């Protein structure tokens, strides 16, 4: 059986090997970009059916951001929405026969976790300046600096491992059952895998929101509503 940590190289562009996951990622990106460009091209005040559907999605994302972060959703809508949509579509891309979800490769998840890591720093600095963001590491006291630094790294790592472990184990279990039992038997497991994929996309987006809200809330000097900080 192939190792779940190995990746299949399809072809080379110059010296750079292009793996299966990279091709799948770019295909998903192309579909998402083309789809959103197509939908948002002719926006009307009295919306069509397609526009209503997508407005509903945007509205749901906005509501989740407002509930979780206790902040105005506008600055975070694009980032969180893209994150959720991409991971959701990537996890469900296993519905297409022959496609392995790119999130089942540890490299894709590492990239996503690094994007969130950078976003936390960026939103933190934007809310309170460099000094204000660095000061969040020293809350509540100076003794906490090493712990806060370690926490920043480990929570990124745990996001990576969580997404990778869940999606990869789904693909792996389906492969094992398919090799043991054959046709039609893995279908319940595939349904479970779809549920896990949707829940993991939601959780990844929620955790990104919670971490960003933590950085933004701490960096701002005075805030009425304290956001709950969840540490992994």
């Amino acid at each position, binding site marked *: 059986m192939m190792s779940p940590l190995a990746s299949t190289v399809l072809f080379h562009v110059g010296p750079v090997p292009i793996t299966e996951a990279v091709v799948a990622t770019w295909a998903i990106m192309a579909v998402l970009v083309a789809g959103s460009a197509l939908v948002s091209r002719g926006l009307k005040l009295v919306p069509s059916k397609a526009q209503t559907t997508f407005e509903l999605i945007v509205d749901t994302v906005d509501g989740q951001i407002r509930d979780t972060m206790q902040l105005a959703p506008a600055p975070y809508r694009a980032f969180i929405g893209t994150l959720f949509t991409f991971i959701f579509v990537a996890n469900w891309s296993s519905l297409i026969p022959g496609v392995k979800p790119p999130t089942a490769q540890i490299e894709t998840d590492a990239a996503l976790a690094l994007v969130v890591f950078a976003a936390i720093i960026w939103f933190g600095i934007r809310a309170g300046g460099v000094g204000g963001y660095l000061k969040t590491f020293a809350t509540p006291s100076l003794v906490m600096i090493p712990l806060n630094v370690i926490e920043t790294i480990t929570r990124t790592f745990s996001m990576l491992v969580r997404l990778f472990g869940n999606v990869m*184990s789904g693909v792996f279990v389906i492969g094992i059952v398919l090799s043991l039992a054959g046709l039609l038997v893995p279908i319940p497991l595939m349904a479970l895998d779809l549920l896990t994929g949707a829940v993991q996309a939601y959780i990844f987006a929620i955790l990104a929101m919670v971490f960003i809200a933590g950085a933004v809330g701490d960096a701002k000097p005075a805030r009425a509503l304290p956001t709950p900080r969840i540490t992994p």
Partner: protein
Amino acid sequence: MNWLAFCSIISAALAVSFGAIGPALAEGRAVAAAMDAIARQPESASTISRTLFVGLAMIETMAIYCLVIALLLLFANPLLK
């Protein structure tokens, strides 16, 4: 099959089995507590279930760590090279 490979397979199985016990108990308690809370206050169900999902993800990470350790032992064992 040498001694080191034998030990790796046994410890991978041990890691997954014992790593599943703790998170399973913890998730059961978390869901039970959330059900209790929703039964008492149905109007705050959305907040409770969102927090529950995040908490479950945190708990589940422990099991996933054990799974990753087992996979490292089986597929990327540095001692078997």
